[in-house]
């Protein structure tokens, strides 16, 4: 009996130290260094890897999510005779929740796992070690650009997701379901507030961007230098990144809506 309690305590302490290590890692990995010219160029290269290469999956997903929202929303609202509220329903759902969250989940799966695998491979083939012994800090050179790139890229992706989703919803609403085009857009405009909805969604996207990229880079850095180690690290990135996004989403939403 005492053994079980002790093992729970040990597990908790270990989790705490893991979080602490991850936090310390973030502190070490964030600074880009003084040489801003090349550093910026490295960030740009990573924005390509993380952002541009994730575009297609994000846009396609956005389109489908927007269209489904329109379908489902119409189904519910038509029972109250309030189809003209469809526009604001789709827009609000996307801007506040689906945009940042779904984009972040997709990002964790596509960009996050790629990041972890890439860094894990660099660790396994001693590239990180070699760099360090050659007197170049791999944190500045490899980790920092990726962290900053993820932080910037995710919000851009989320906005594009939102846009495509709203227009996709409009497509379904107006052309398929027969909602009057004017009311789709006009009601949306009056119901959506730049600050409460758009800005909050944007803030969420920035937070998710930082957290998902942080988890991805950390697991790559920390992976065991074997192929099983890398595959395990990649899985952890996707699982932990996704759960972190959902958990943070709850916290952020509660704060934004309820003003705790």
């Amino acid at each position, binding site marked *: 009996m005492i053994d079980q309690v002790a093992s729970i305590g040990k597990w908790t302490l270990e989790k705490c130290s893991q979080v602490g290590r991850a936090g310390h890692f973030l502190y070490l990995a964030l600074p880009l260094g003084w040489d801003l010219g090349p550093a910026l160029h490295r960030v740009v290269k990573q924005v390509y890897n993380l952002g541009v290469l994730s575009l297609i999956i994000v846009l396609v997903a956005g389109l489908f999510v927007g269209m489904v929202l329109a379908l489902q929303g119409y189904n519910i609202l038509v029972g109250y005779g309030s189809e003209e509220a469809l526009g604001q329903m789709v827009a609000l759902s996307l801007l506040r929740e689906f945009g940042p969250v779904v984009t972040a989940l997709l990002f964790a799966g596509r960009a996050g796992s790629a990041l972890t695998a890439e860094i894990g*491979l*660099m660790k396994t*083939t*001693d*590239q990180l*070690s*070699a*760099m*360090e*012994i*050659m*007197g*170049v800090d791999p944190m500045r050179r490899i980790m920092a650009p990726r962290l900053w790139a993820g932080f910037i890229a995710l919000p851009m992706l989320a906005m594009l997701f939102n846009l495509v989703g709203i227009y996709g919803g409009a497509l379904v609403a107006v052309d398929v379901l027969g909602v009057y085009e004017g009311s789709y857009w006009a009601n949306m405009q009056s119901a959506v507030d730049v600050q409460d909805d758009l800005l909050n969604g944007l803030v969420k996207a920035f937070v998710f961007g930082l957290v998902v990229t942080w988890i991805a880079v950390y697991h790559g850095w920390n992976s065991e230098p074997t192929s099983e180690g890398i595959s395990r690290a990649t899985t952890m990135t996707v699982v932990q990144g996704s759960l972190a996004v959902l958990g943070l989403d709850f916290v952020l939403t509660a704060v934004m809506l309820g003003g705790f």
Partner: protein
Amino acid sequence: MNQTISESDFDCKNFVSVRDMSFYRGDRAIYDSLSLDIECGKITAILGPSGTGKTTLLRLIAGQLVPDSGSVTVAGLEVSKLNRQSLLALRKRMSLLFQSGALFTDMTVFENVAFPLREHTTLPKHMIRDLVMLKLEAVGLRGVAEQMPQSLSGGMARRVALARSIALDPELIMYDEPFTGQDPISMGVLVKLIRSLNDALGMTSILVSHDVEEALSIADYVYVVSEGRIIGQGTPEQLMKDSNPDVHQFLYGEADGPVPFHHPAPKTLKDEVLTYD
């Protein structure tokens, strides 16, 4: 205040000195009061069975790891006591060639070799270009300068990594298992390069390997390490005559000896095969 000793001050006898060094991983002692010297200008081989932590020793010398006790001195400076700047300065004077080459996969061969030059010098572009070409020529691979590391064979990748290691003309170069998994021709090329680079550039070389034949063919001095301790040392000729059975078994590749052929098993063979439960 300034910790670096200029090269003229340092009267080179032993480039690296390890004294009573112990290093633990968890409870396991990787090294237990190890002492050895690496003479300047010579190729010193460190031999031993796989997994005894030979790579760890190289990392200790390079300052990536810190010993739990004892000292590691490189070029007169104790590595674990150096601050960041001094360690960086020392690292420019040494290089480590990893087993896998460790070429950066997102850069071309040229960019890989140019990397240390771009990082640590402010030489103009055309000079860097010339230097890179010279280094690649020294290893015979000037022709692949624009290729990516992934398209090279293992042996070629290792040679490119060697070119990268000599980019800054280091005083000490360490080879981690350079012969492992090489075909006879690549092996021959590497052996030739290690010897000629050492002599032509006046470098000190440390060779870590479990490939006895090749290592003994070019080493000036050899240490045989097992279980964290030195079990034999001397010139290749001296070692081949060493009467220590551990050394003998390792050097001659004997299947049975102090390291037994049979792994301990709970029952005797007779009990295993002839008794029925």
